[in-house]
């Protein structure tokens, strides 16, 4: 739905802007200008928080400023009526907003596409009316307005005319940028970007999609509420008009013009949109038109915003793309990690409980000896009905552990539907599916992932703006217990996990044979063959006992197909990984598979060893419509 690129590691840019703002704060700027910059820093806090949700998760949120309003009013009322200390008022407000956002958000994340966008906009409209209405009149003073008591914190005068409000706003902005940057560049942030790419794929990798979206929503709401503090102190007076629902759109415009999905971009956007009008001093109507035009031009022609322009300019100044390092160079910031990882071929010590019970072996990714089940996958009488269509009808077969089993059939036979059932994306209408002896017929995708089922897709669905390595690391999303709080604490706090995870990702990439020179490339640069290889690496990196491959060879040439075949055979031989693959290419199937099941119109029509099955007359009829022995069948 949303194809704009998000950016990793833009912290240097953001810090540079903050440094400039700090410098500005030290200069003797006139109070009017100072006030404007405090306002724009407050907007900046809200904008950066919104960027996480709309830029990295890619969902529209047109109600962010409503949370600023709730924050501003709540803090002010708690300070003036309940006589709370400002820090306490802020904490109580944060808790309150988190609850409100959780309620609104839990409804919102279940909605599709623009239903969610409208809900947030309506929420902003509702809040605007509530602020000006009767229900909360005693608290908010409604249209009469609420004066904000001036604040001093110890010796620091934080009132609107004091020197220190600037630094309060600046410090809060810095904190917001750091937290958001940590979030965006961590495991949690990668999960957001994967959800943006494909919610379904994210589900199969163990991401709890709705919970993740909700968490991101609550984060951006809480950040917005915090922005209410410097905003209310600066203006000194709260009226409903200040939190008009149109402001949420203005906030969004700041994101787009600054550069959505870059954290630094919204900073730039908020400074420009708030500060520039003061510098222009033109009549408001022309200025409003100018901003609308700027907004429109940027959305159409410069969707990457000002940040994108700066980035392009910098790259142009450096003379084009830097040459990729030669293999087997371990260059760049990952160099040391890679060297370390490839020396530790065994699983490095990882903190946190692994999610798999010891004694149950994972075929790939866990070197512990195992007690294996004879049939890694058992499907009994699986039937799937969509509306009037019976996509699968009484499908029964088994996949023996440590073998490669092919599922073939003409287009529309139900092969991908079956894979969807096994991986938990679809619930069978009737029948039973068991993985390693456990009934997973009613289980959700992320639980099935924990049982060791991983899959690839016809469309690899890699996150285009993440590097290959980052994409593969997503495969390790569910492999350790981790929390958002640790992600927010920053890269240094997560370094042990980071090391372990990237080590495992590196081994997976080495396993699939992708050269090290490609590991830092953004996934959008990859050829289809490379993307499919990365998809497989992502699927096995976190450990797997049953790998579901959906058309691993479609679109590939002979040579690449051969490489995939070798890889699969290696995985089977060296790691006892069981593989269920859906393929069209007969030669490939003959080369790799131990057993084959043939589906036609949702029914199993043949099963057994490849050579025998291919010669089966029923199979030939299904594929070719003609029962001719040997006709048209042969390796490509």
């Amino acid at each position, binding site marked *: 739905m949303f194809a704009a690129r998000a950016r990793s590691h833009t912290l*240097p*840019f953001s810090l*540079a*802007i903050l*440094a*400039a703002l700090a*410098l*500005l704060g030290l*200069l003797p*700027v*006139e*109070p*009017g*200008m100072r*006030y*404007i*910059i405090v*306002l724009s820093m407050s907007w900046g806090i809200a904008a950066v928080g919104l960027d996480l949700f709309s830029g990295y998760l890619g969902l529209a949120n047109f109600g962010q400023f409503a949370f600023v309003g709730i924050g501003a009013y709540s803090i002010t009322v708690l300070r003036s009526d309940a006589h709370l200390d400002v820090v306490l008022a802020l904490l109580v407000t944060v808790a309150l907003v988190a609850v409100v956002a959780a309620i609104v958000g839990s409804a919102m994340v279940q909605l599709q596409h623009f239903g969610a966008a409208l809900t947030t906009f309506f929420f902003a*409209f509702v809040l*605007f*009316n509530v602020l*000006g*209405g*009767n229900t909360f009149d005693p608290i908010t003073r*409604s*249209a*009469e*307005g609420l*004066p904000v008591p001036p604040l001093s914190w110890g010796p620091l005068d934080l009132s*609107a005319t004091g020197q220190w409000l600037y630094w309060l706003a600046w410090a809060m902005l810095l904190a917001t940028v750091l937290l958001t940057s940590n979030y965006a560049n961590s495991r949690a942030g990668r999960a957001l970007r994967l959800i943006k790419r494909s919610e379904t794929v994210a589900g199969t990798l163990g991401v709890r999609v709705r919970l993740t979206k909700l968490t991101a929503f609550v984060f951006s709401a809480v950040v917005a509420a915090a922005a209410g503090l410097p905003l209310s102190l*600066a*203006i*000194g*007076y*709260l*009226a*409903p*008009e*200040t939190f008009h629902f149109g402001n949420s759109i203005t906030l969004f415009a700041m994101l787009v013009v600054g550069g959505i999905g870059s954290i*630094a971009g919204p900073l*730039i956007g908020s*400074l420009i949109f708030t*500060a520039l009008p*003061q*510098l222009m*001093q033109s*009549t*408001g*109507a022309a*200025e*409003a038109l100018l901003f609308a035009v700027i907004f429109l031009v940027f959305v159409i022609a410069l969707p990457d915003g000002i940040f994108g322009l*700066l980035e392009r*300019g*910098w790259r142009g*100044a*450096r003379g084009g793309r830097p040459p990729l390092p030669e293999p087997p160079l371990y260059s760049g910031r990952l160099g040391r990690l890679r060297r370390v990882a490839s020396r530790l071929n065994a699983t490095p010590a990882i903190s946190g409980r692994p999610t798999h019970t010891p004694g149950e072996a994972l075929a790939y990714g866990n070197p512990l000896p195992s007690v294996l089940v004879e049939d890694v996958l058992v499907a009994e009488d699986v039937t799937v009905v969509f509306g009037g269509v019976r996509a699968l009808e009484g499908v029964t077969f088994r996949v023996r552990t440590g073998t490669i089993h092919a599922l073939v059939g003409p287009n529309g036979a139900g092969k991908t539907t079956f894979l969807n059932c096994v991986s938990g994306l679809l619930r069978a209408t009737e029948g039973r599916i068991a993985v390693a002896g456990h009934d997973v017929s009613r289980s959700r995708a992320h639980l099935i992932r924990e049982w060791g089922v991983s899959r690839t897709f016809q469309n690899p669905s890699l996150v285009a703006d993440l590097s290959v390595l980052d994409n593969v690391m997503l495969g390790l999303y569910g492999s350790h217990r981790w929390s958002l709080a640790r992600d927010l604490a920053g890269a240094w706090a997560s370094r042990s996990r980071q090391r372990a995870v990237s080590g495992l990702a590196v081994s997976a990439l080495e396993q699939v044979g992708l050269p090290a020179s490609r590991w830092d490339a953004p996934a959008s640069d990859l050829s289809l063959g490379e993307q499919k290889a990365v998809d497989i690496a992502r699927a096995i990196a976190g450990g797997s006992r049953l790998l579901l491959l959906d058309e691993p060879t479609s679109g590939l040439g002979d040579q690449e197909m051969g490489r995939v075949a070798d890889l699969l055979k290696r995985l089977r031989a060296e790691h006892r990984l069981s593989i269920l693959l859906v393929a069209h290419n007969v030669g490939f199937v003959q080369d790799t598979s131990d057993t084959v099941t043939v589906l036609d119109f949702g029914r199993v029509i043949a099963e057994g060893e490849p050579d025998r099955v291919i010669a089966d007359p029923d199979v030939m009829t299904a594929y070719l419509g003609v029962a001719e022995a040997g006709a048209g069948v042969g390796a490509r």
Partner: protein
Amino acid sequence: MKRTLWLPLTAAATLLLAAACGGSAPGSSSSNGGATAPGVTTDTIQVGTTNAETGIVSASASLTKAGAQAVFDKVNAGGGVNGRKIKVNVLDDAYTAPKAVANVRTFINQPVFAVFGGYGTVPAQSIAPILEQAKVPYLFPYQGNPYPNDRYVFLVMPLYRNQTVAVIKNAIQKYGKGTVYALVGKTADTAQAIQDGKQATMDAGGTWLGYDEVSQGTTDYTPYVLRMKQSHPDYVLVSTTPTDCARYVTAMVAQGALPAKRILGLQTLATETFINAVPVEASRVLFAPGPNAAPSNKLAADCVATVRKYAPGTQITMETLWGCGTAQLLVYALRKAGDNLTRDGLVKTLEAMRQVDAVPVLTPISFSRSNHVGEAKMYQFTSDNKQLISGGTMPIGAAGA
């Protein structure tokens, strides 16, 4: 990481330079050059106006500004006040608090001698405390909310609550006793206005049926009209923004729900904006007070001539005359304050005014230490075929009077 920094740093530095350079507002040097007070030099008096130049109320707000500017131009053409020309710095606040506050901060820093005019509740409420604290006189904004404890804030237009009392009393006196229903917009002082209105109705021998409160964002006034309609009131008091008043009244006509006697309102209804926006059946039954005379009234002749000469092309409406009248009052006060012009001196001068009749288009102005609302009378307005007619005045007392 070093390489990534130089371009964003350059960009940030450029931004910083722009901000620092653009940060100096025109005339921000604080040297006063032979001044007696901030904003006053030997030959100028600097005044600041924060006005809704853009936004929904901008039509009315720009008329008040134009009317005032015509007066200042005329005065300056004649040599100014005590040899000083009046210069007005007008900044747009788009009827929002943050912008109004920003403008006022600029004014305090510029500095201006006083802040004059402006339109509407929201900006006024947000800047009054700041001006009071900075001891800068805030003079004659177009709004009717009270500032009881502020020494430096002076209003001309009577408070909304007092207007409510007066219009009900006078209507009942003129058109007979009856039932009253009110539609009130949520602005400051609403609760007090409703209470006072109810009391006034009962005191005058009428019956108070009830009221509805509306806030912004109403799409369709029909439900409110339906609620009012079932009580069949004699008088309907409509007291909200001019646009919403017009919408409500239009819906009244569409539903055939005009009151038996009269539509009552506050000064927002005694405007051409309202009259032109509602069907003629409604404007015919209007009765509302206005702070200044109608353009057709001979008391307005002086202002009309001034505006025609010094701001040709400006529409002459109630708002224009308000701007003219309040500007004339300011000029009068500045003259009276004398050569040695200080802010406190101006305050004292204003507070000494008793029944000053120097501004024909306004009613007589009185201020005192305890009363900072200038007018004690307002003109009575009715309408006939899309024209405002001002006939006589009605007294507006303090609350409850």
